């Protein structure tokens, strides 16, 4: 994160290009490995043609992986930015995601009860979703700032384990606080994303002929929306960090807190703003997550949080570009392992093993390249 002269136009195009390269690169590599495996394993099964099944599933698996990758990337931003300025893993970040998801879903449920959602066309439906995402951002961002002020700031400068343990505490506390709120108000602790708009419809892209079998390559409106939201948010964050005064202040605090303070930067304010931005991104990701998987519950944030952290480490923690790459790789990998692991192992191992893949990768990265794929210097201090 070095300081340099800024060309605002370039600051929008550059991350767009990077994103495109990351998506295409990781998609090609992972697809190639999978196809190679399919070819190698083809003789082991006589009942079905593994290669053909693999190819039929491939487009959908890729789209699923990319949307998941965007969500991981957005959540990973929160980890990586906070780590950048404080060198501290905010364990409770997944709970900010969860709070954001609940805020957005509650808004949509309320709107649904008013009857405005049922009649919504695509354009109006988009407005409602955007509103829900914005509300999720506000709630999660506010929660992140409050948490920082109440639980983390008093512990700044304490031995390293102390804030980490407090963050685990915050994570648990927030989970059950939401559970309590939901139980007290709704009598049950989970909510479902209301169904509305034409998001389930598919946009036909093209048809491929495979051994005389036509395969439709189609993409759901939902997936398109998730991707658009993801691109907008990642590019906006890049712009904010690289091309604005605030971004400059954040980067300088990340580089050296004391010197930044000497240069007239209000370090406490910048740290709070970092939490606000990270939390807001998490909240947005939460609403998108709810949109994608429909069910929200108080414990939904934990595992995505952990995966997003893995993504951040994979890309090189502290690096925003790295978090984008890490999220993409992890999302694709998870989607591929969930889809193909069971086919390749003759049903012996199911999709449940995808979590093991994610953690296995985390461990491998930390052993062989602790600075991550894109991390330059080792920032790890004791």
């Amino acid at each position, binding site marked *: 994160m070095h300081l340099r002269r800024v060309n605002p136009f370039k600051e929008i195009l550059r991350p767009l290009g990077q994103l495109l390269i990351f998506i295409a690169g990781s998609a090609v590599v992972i697809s190639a490995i999978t196809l190679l495996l399919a070819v190698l394993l083809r003789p082991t099964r006589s009942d079905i043609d593994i290669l053909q099944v693999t190819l039929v599933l491939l487009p959908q698996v890729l789209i699923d992986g990319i949307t998941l990758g965007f969500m991981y990337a957005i959540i990973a931003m929160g980890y990586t930015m906070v780590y950048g300025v404080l060198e*501290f*893993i905010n364990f409770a970040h997944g709970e900010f995601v969860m709070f954001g998801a609940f805020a957005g879903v509650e808004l949509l449920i309320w709107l649904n009860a008013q009857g405005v959602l049922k009649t919504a066309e695509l354009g109006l439906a988009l407005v409602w979703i955007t509103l829900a995402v914005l509300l999720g951002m506000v709630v999660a961002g506010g929660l992140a700032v409050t948490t920082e002020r109440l*639980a983390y700031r*008093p*512990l700044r400068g*304490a*031995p*390293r*384990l*102390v*804030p*980490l*343990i*407090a963050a*685990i*505490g*915050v*994570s*648990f*506390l*927030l*989970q*059950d*606080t939401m*559970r*309590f709120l939901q*139980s*007290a108000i709704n*009598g*049950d*602790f989970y909510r479902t994303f209301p169904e509305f708009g034409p998001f389930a419809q598919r946009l036909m892209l093209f048809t491929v002929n495979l051994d005389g079998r036509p395969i439709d390559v189609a993409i759901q409106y939902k997936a398109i929306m998730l991707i658009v939201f993801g691109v907008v948010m990642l590019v906006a964050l890049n712009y904010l960090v690289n091309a604005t005064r605030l971004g400059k202040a954040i980067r300088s605090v990340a580089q050296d807190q004391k010197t930044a303070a000497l240069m007239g930067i209000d370090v406490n304010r910048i740290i709070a703003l970092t939490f606000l931005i990270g939390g807001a991104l998490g909240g947005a990701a939460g609403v998108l997550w709810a949109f994608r998987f429909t069910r929200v519950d108080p414990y939904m944030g*934990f595992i995505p949080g*952990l995966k997003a*952290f*893995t993504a951040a*480490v994979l890309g090189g923690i502290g690096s925003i570009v790295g978090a984008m790459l890490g999220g993409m790789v992890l999302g694709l990998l998870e989607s591929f392992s969930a889809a193909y692991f069971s086919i390749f192992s003759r*049903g*012996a*191992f*199911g999709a*449940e*093993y995808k*979590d*093991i893949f*994610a*953690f*296995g990768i*985390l*461990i491998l990265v*930390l*052993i062989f390249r*602790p600075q991550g794929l894109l991390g330059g210097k080792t920032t*790890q201090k*004791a």
Partner: protein
Amino acid sequence: MSAHATSTNRFLRIFGGPFGALLALLYAVGVTYLLTLDPRSLLARLLLFSALALIYFIPQRPAVKFLLGALLVLMVVPAVGLRNPFLLEIGFQVAVFATLALGLNVVVGFAGLLDLGYIAFFAVGAYLWAFFGSQQIWHIDEPPGTFTVYATFPFPAWWFWLFIPLGILAAAGMGIILGFPVLRLRGDYLAIVTLGFGEVIRVLANNLDKPINLTNGPQGITPIQRPPLPEFLTNPALLATLSQWAGRPINANDIYGFFFYFLGLLILGVTIIIARRLDRSKLGRSWTAIREDDVAAVAMGVPLRRTKLTAFAIGAAFSGAMGVLYAANRTFVSPETFSLTASISILVMVILGGLGSIPGVVMGAAVVTLLNIDILQSLSLQLSSLRQGADSIPLLGIPWKNLPTQLDPARYQRFFFGLLLILMMIFRPEGMVPAERARLELHEDEGEAILNAEIEGDIAPDEKLAD
């Protein structure tokens, strides 16, 4: 212990001297009397626990304290347990979790390696005996839920005693297997990787019902054998006498309650002795050294790899033994027991009591276990009995029976754990019964103030060194 004498507050000074010992004894007798009046009372159980804590803190000679504690733990609890077996159950669980907390304390407290997947080692021990002590070995080719329960078992029940050392070895082995890849990691990275490891073990336990059925999946393994009771404990004359004392029929199952209580205490006792010896050994000092500054420790000739690996192995070993015992006690093992919440609850015990402090950790384990299985459960029970009635919540005016069952306090363990962790970290990071070193480190300023007063200088010792 001398440090405690100096920091003893005014209230505890009443319990000094022979008169104080008598006072403590009186308190213990009073609590016992209350317990015999109503063996089911939560308040009486909490008072009993407070008596034990009090005995630890009073300024008496260790021998006197030990005698008083033994009186309560070895006489009063079993005696009252005759009438209310739940007390023995609580005692057993406290012993199990205190042992686990002591094991985690070796890793986190002594060696400073934050392990968030510690429950995995407990799972290894539990599943080891669950597999060999049940009929699972006969069902290896059958999917869960399809097989019949036979009357016999593949291995004799007394193998349980073999499996305690085997559980220790297996868990220690797992500790080393986990230890190798994470040797280079520190602090927060280590925390995340161990957390992932814990999750991996749980996912495996959940899914290894295919391709071969090792764990029976989410349904768990049951029945698991218990070790055979010695002949003299189950003889009808003894049972008849005990039934007379208890005022209720006592059967072999109740005897198992006593058996596991004492066995749990025995293992806990051995663990405490080992942990104390380790803390003061050369290895213990090496752990302290790598905890405080591993670069400096290596420079001083501490073998980093070996020291870290032994910390993982020994910490894991304690929970391996308890896993075997726990599986036998429950006769049932399922992946649910080994969740992340369980790992964190053990961490809460260690933090609450005081990182690195053996008495603190045991006390923390007792408090958290009581909170978990006794206090919250009792509150839930009271709430549900209120729900049966027609009364309303005071002030709010909502009838109790409209209160959703989702609001049962027993469902909110995480809330209390989280709150405890945050509050402890902000206000008392050294724990209830701090280890000497942690107290000095975390209250450096206060310590310096005292030192300054003692050396009558204006310069703190640190600054002197820096000059």
